[in-house]
Structure formats: structure tokens, C-alpha cells
């Protein structure tokens, strides 16, 4: 017996059993204390490393795309003109909406309290499952808060919070499931991540319509996400494996490796 217990294999076996037991218990509080210390200390170095890498990556992209710049510039000018016209029209609609709400005594839609944060790290396994930001519980960040970029593009939600850092689980993570709706056809479904590769708009009824190019937004059903946050555009439509529902492949507007700054919705009021 003593001979078996002193072998290397037995030691490895004991260590594995202990940690499998620890994984099943998932002792967050025990780890949280050490996590707070190590992660807080590492944040300044991660910030420097990340921002330097982004600058280098942008320079590399710029140099490699010099040939396409003129064509891209022309396309962007045209898109800018179209978007300026859309903004003017929508501002007018917004004013009308606010006036009607005041007349009908309804509260205003979706008031967000935002906290901005820098991205300082990514999933190191290269699967685009999560990102790390430099704000944490000391800045009022809590678990399950939605995370957006630009004015309202949803990229994920807060999964874990430490004192000065937080982990954001991206929509492309296979554990991410949120309710979505097609803006154009009002088809409802569920947005699921596909191991960091992309998004699937699943469980859409066969009687609903999905068109390539349609915008998918959050539906607000369930109350865990504000309604109206942009998710992506439909790229491809097909039936699910069991042929009961429709599915659509949804393209993400920006790859996570290009994100530098995010906004966390700390508090939202929906009507």
C-alpha cells in the first residue's frame, strides 16, 4: 500500500481528484480574494500591452490596405451621405415620438446609464469567447449587465466581476443565449453563439420570414436585455437539423479583436 501511494501516478491521481472536486464546488469566494489581488496588479501591464498591440495591428492593417484605400474612401463617403439623410429623418421621427409620449403620458424609452471601459484582454485560446475590461465592482459593474459598443451594438454581457476588472462573455460564446427579433419582419427567435465563430438566430417559426440583410436586434423578452440593441445582420437562412424551425446565420458587425472601448449599461429603464 505504501509503495502505491508513494508513486508519481498516485500523486497525479490525488491532485486530479482534488481539483475535479474543486471544479464541481466552484468556490468563487475562495478564489475571488486571490483573483482580486492578481488581476488588479496585472491590469496596468495588460493595458499597456493591449493598447500597443492594437496600435501595431492597426498600422499593419493600414499598410496592407493602402491599395484599397481610395475605393474604400469612395464607398464610405457615399455611405456617410446616406446615413446623414437617415439621421435627419430619424431625428424628426424621434421628436414626434417624444411629443406623442408626453401627450399620452408615457415614460421615455430606454434611458441608459453607461460606464465606459477599456478592453485589456481576450480569450487566450483564440476562440473569441470573452474579453476583459479594466472596470470592476469598485466602478459599479455588476454581473449580467449588458455591454455595448458605439451607440447601441450589443456585444455581450458581464459574466464575472472582480474589484478592478470584469469578464465580458461575448454573444459568440456557445453559452450565450439571448432573445432576438428581426426588425424588418418581426420574426422572433433566440440568438446563440457558435463556439466563438459566429451567431445563429435559432428557433424561428417556419411561418415567419427571414431575409438576407435583415437587421436583428434584442427583443427585450425576459427583461434581461434592453430592447432594441443591434446584434447583426442576417447572412444566410436555412432550416434547423430537425426541420422544425428556421435558422439564420447572423454576421457580427465587428470582430472582438478590434474592440478597444466598450460601454456597460449599468441601469436601464424600459417601458
Amino acid at each position, binding site marked *: 500500500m505504501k509503495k502505491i501511494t508513494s508513486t508519481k501516478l498516485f500523486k497525479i491521481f490525488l491532485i486530479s481528484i482534488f481539483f475535479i472536486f474543486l471544479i464541481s464546488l466552484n468556490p468563487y469566494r475562495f478564489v475571488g480574494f486571490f483573483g482580486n489581488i492578481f488581476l488588479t496588479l496585472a491590469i496596468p501591464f*495588460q493595458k499597456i*500591452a493591449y493598447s500597443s*498591440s492594437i496600435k501595431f495591428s492597426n498600422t499593419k492593417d493600414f499598410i496592407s490596405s493602402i491599395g484599397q484605400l481610395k475605393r474604400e474612401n469612395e464607398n464610405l463617403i457615399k455611405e456617410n451621405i446616406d446615413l446623414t439623410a437617415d439621421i435627419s429623418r430619424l431625428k424628426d421621427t424621434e421628436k414626434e415620438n417624444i411629443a406623442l409620449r408626453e401627450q399620452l403620458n408615457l415614460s421615455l424609452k430606454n434611458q441608459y446609464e453607461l460606464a465606459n471601459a477599456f478592453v485589456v484582454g481576450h480569450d487566450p485560446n483564440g476562440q473569441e469567447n470573452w474579453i476583459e475590461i479594466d472596470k470592476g465592482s469598485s466602478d459599479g459593474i455588476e454581473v449580467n449587465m449588458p455591454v455595448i459598443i458605439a451607440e447601441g451594438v450589443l456585444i455581450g454581457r458581464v459574466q464575472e466581476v472582480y474589484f478592478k476588472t470584469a469578464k465580458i462573455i461575448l454573444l459568440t460564446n456557445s453559452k450565450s443565449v439571448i432573445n432576438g427579433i428581426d426588425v424588418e419582419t418581426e420574426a422572433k427567435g433566440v440568438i446563440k453563439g457558435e463556439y466563438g465563430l459566429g451567431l445563429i438566430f435559432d428557433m424561428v417559426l417556419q411561418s415567419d420570414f427571414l431575409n438576407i440583410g435583415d437587421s436583428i436586434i434584442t427583443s427585450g423578452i425576459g427583461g434581461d436585455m434592453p430592447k432594441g440593441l443591434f446584434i447583426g445582420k442576417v447572412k444566410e437562412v436555412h432550416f434547423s437539423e430537425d426541420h422544425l424551425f428556421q435558422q439564420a446565420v447572423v454576421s457580427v458587425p465587428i470582430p472582438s479583436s478590434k474592440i478597444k472601448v466598450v460601454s456597460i449599461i449599468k441601469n436601464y429603464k424600459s417601458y
Partner: protein
Amino acid sequence: MKKTIAYFFIIIVSIIIQKSIFPIFGAYFVLPNLVLMLILALSILENFYTFLYKSVFAGMLYDIFLYQQVGIYAIIFPMVVYFVSFFSRRISVDLKITGIFMFGFFIIFVTLMSDFLFFIISYYGMDGLDFFVKIIKNPLLLVYKIFFNSMFFILYYNIIKRIKNSYFFI
């Protein structure tokens, strides 16, 4: 003590590079695992009994920095140490040709074993296995990953060897 501090410092720097620099430049799944290669290099150059518990600590540290359940890499790293010790006792890694062959074998096996265990444990079983099988069906991804891992293994092997032989750390 000085060597331990130096190893700890190298682990922390590797984790920061792994999280904050490589994901920006790497393609899907094709990222070297710096910390794993560091542990492999240390497993070859250090004694099993002296390094086993340090590898457990390194695994726990890596899990904390990766925001995952503590235990995933704390299981994987000691297995790497045991695996290297098992073969190192039977085949000498000091001979040139045999050594190169053994290093290549270690890198390939450790890369596959680490990904397999990681997906099984973090995705709770069959989903992880299913995903791992999908990855295996794209051998080019694995080839690139093993190639990058090899580059960093050679780098770490040389760094650790210099630290061990350096007068400052004796």
C-alpha cells in the same frame, strides 16, 4: 528561491502576453499556448518532485487569470509534468536526434492533451468532446498551432536553461 521567483515572473509575463497581445494577431484557435510550453520546458529541465507542486500552483494562477474555474489547468499542468517524467526516465532527451524527436513528441502530445482536457472539463463533457472532434477534423489548425507552440517551446527551453546555468540564480 531566486529561480522560483524568476519562473514566477516568466509565468506572469507569459500570461499577460497570452491574454493581451496574441489574441489580436492570431486567427481562430491558432494561438500558441505560451504558458503550456513554459511548463513543458520546465518539466523537462526540472525534477518531477521539485516541480510538481509548482506546476499545480502555476495551473491555479493561470486559471485565476483566465477567469475560469480553478482546477482546469491545475489538472493539466501536473499531467504534463508526469507525462514528461514518464518518458524522460525511459528515453534520454540529452542525445541529439533522440532529444529532438522526444521534444517534438512532447509538444504534439501535450498540445492535443491540453486542448482535449480543457474542452472536456470547461464544456462539461460531451459538448466539449464534440467540439474537440470538429477541431481535429481541420488538421491545418492543429498543424499551425503545433508549429507556433514549437517555436515558443524552443525559446522557453533556452531561457530556462540559461537561468539554470546562470551564476546569479545558483
